């Protein structure tokens, strides 16, 4: 993140501006200091403590077991096949949900970009899932929709001979993803609708005169125009969904086994159900490093897109 931010020019060295001595500089910065110190306390101290814990063997259920073990926790993490499964789950859950939500959001945005009777009502209804508390949404999916005996999905599918399917037990990862997609499609839809509505009409008219079919217009003009909106949606969605916890906790508790666990949930399990502070801290550090690498690429992508490379001809 810091790499992409403009460093504020230090007042002492600003060319042309009157020279400001050190004391004056500090006097000007002083009002910002409390916020800075607060931010450091709540973000950096826990992180440094996590780094410290990750170098120790420490199980809460065995008092006095705390000892310094260098990097053996990290070795254990990379040797842990469950950790790898969970990491893969996280990638599938995050990227799969985001990409499907983008595609569905695009379709709905294209629909809402047309004039039809009751458009306002439809738009409000389509946005609603995004406004529901994640825990409530997860509960809704677990009981009202996916319950094997009482769920609406099975009720609707009964005439087609598919009753009694145990959705959450048989397809745990897909079930959690369904709930995530349901919640995140409206976000993508809103973002892409804004993109569609910022499309200059004269370009669309020019395409009509130039003989483009609806599909060619979409592929050749609309999609390139939407590219940066899609990228923004993917990046924001990924940043949020990679940390998702509520749906996993509520719907499957990561199970069966770790079939539907993602990294935040697995770390939570290790720390607060397994009480293995050292190893969960090491996992946290690994996840932070991987996330930083991924986020760096992703942010670079959207800052490039939004620097207005091919804006407004």
């Amino acid at each position, binding site marked *: 993140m810091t790499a992409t931010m403009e460093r504020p020019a230090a007042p002492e060295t600003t060319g042309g501006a009157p020279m400001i001595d050190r004391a004056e500089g500090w006097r000007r910065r002083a009002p910002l200091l409390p916020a800075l110190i607060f931010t450091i306390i709540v973000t950096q101290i826990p992180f440094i403590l996590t780094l410290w814990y990750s170098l120790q063997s420490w199980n809460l259920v065995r008092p006095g077991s705390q000892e310094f073990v260098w990097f053996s926790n990290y070795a254990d993490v990379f040797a842990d096949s469950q950790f790898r499964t969970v990491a893969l789950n996280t990638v599938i859950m995050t990227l799969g949900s985001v990409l499907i939500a983008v595609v569905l959001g695009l379709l709905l945005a294209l629909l809402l970009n047309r004039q039809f009777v009751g458009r306002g009502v439809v738009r409000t209804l389509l946005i609603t899932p995004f406004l529901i508390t994640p825990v409530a949404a997860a509960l809704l999916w677990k009981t009202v929709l996916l319950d094997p005996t009482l769920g609406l999905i099975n009720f609707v599918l009964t005439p087609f001979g598919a009753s009694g399917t145990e959705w959450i037990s048989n397809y745990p990862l897909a079930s959690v993803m369904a709930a995530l997609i349901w919640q995140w499609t409206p976000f993508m839809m809103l973002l892409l609708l804004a993109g569609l509505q910022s499309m200059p009409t004269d370009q669309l008219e020019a395409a*009509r*005169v130039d003989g483009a079919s609806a599909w060619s217009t979409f592929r050749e003009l609309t999609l390139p125009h939407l590219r940066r909106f899609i990228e923004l949606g993917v990046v924001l969605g990924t940043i949020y969904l990679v940390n998702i916890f509520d749906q996993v906790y509520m719907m499957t508790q990561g199970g069966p086994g770790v079939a539907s666990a993602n990294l935040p949930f697995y770390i939570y399990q290790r720390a607060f159900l397994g009480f293995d502070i050292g190893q969960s801290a090491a996992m946290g550090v690994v996840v932070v490093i991987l996330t930083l690498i991924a986020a760096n690429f992703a942010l670079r992508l959207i800052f490039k897109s939004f620097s207005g490379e091919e804006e407004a001809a």
Partner: protein
Amino acid sequence: MAEVVFDQASRIYTPGAKPAVDSLDLTVADGDLVVLVGPSGSGKSTALRMLAGLEPIDAGSVRIDGRDVVDVPSKDRDIAMVFQNYALYPSKTVAENMAFPLKMRGMGKEERAQRVRQAAEMLGLTDFLDRKPKALSGGQRQRVAMGRAIVREPQVFLMDEPLSNLDAKMRVQTRAQIAEMQNRLAVSTVYVTHDQVEAMTMGDKVAVLADGKLQQYATPPELYDRPINSFVAGFIGSPAMNLLDLPRSSSGVTLGGIEIPLPREVSDAAGSRDRLTVGIRPEDWVLESTGSDAGSVVKAVVDVVEELGSESYLYAHLAEDTSTSIVVRGPGRVQVRFGDPIAVRPNPDALHVFDAETGQRLP
């Protein structure tokens, strides 16, 4: 190459309201450049968009080369359009922009490239083919938009104020280029502008619109010499014609204490009307010496002098009737300044007389 006919064509945005284009009758002869000109809201752009297929035709019909196109979608009308803001595709290069209409019509890659190259040579865009529109100047973008229209070799060109986003110098230059190119390609062209100078210099014929109605459709000289009503008289010409509401006298009209005789046929056509609108172009005043006999000249007081080098325009108000202002063209160097008295006499052979109520030309 085709003849374009508007036959009682109307566009009604909201039923019951005044039509944006009201029963337009207009024929664009094959190969002609016809300019639609009028103030904002006159319906000129709407008329063009009806021809383009971007607005429905609610009544009447529009024919291209004898074919009624009312129900024909835009892409099948064999037209090409240049938009006011050029409407270039920002994600495509210049070459891709120009090739787009050909690609959409399924033309092969090689032929596309060849046509684009030809058009680019004609427009001086060869060096810019790989650039995106964003990296071009306003004039270059305008030429790309022209290029995208001409590669198609359509039956009709439509241009919607294509020069309005250029600076004054570029506009004069491009104006000449477009007229020259249109002559060379001999493709029927409908050109919309609010600038009467563009209309007069480019059009084979000019259609003046106001309030959705066609006022006059004529060649530029005819429009200038015989405006059909006081609206056209006031719209065409810069500075505008002096339109004065004058009382009748025994043999003509009275202006600033002098009597201006009217030609016989005008007097006859005017009948018993006791007031007439008389139009006098700035160049149809004769400047007299201020010492002239009071009975034969109109005395006025100068408000503003615009010296353009080859000529000058004197904005003045009548000495007798300070609420009446006139514009007089004088020679390039005039000695008068703000507040100076002048004496002028209208050229009696160059008067335009209109009914004071309806604005119609008499006779």
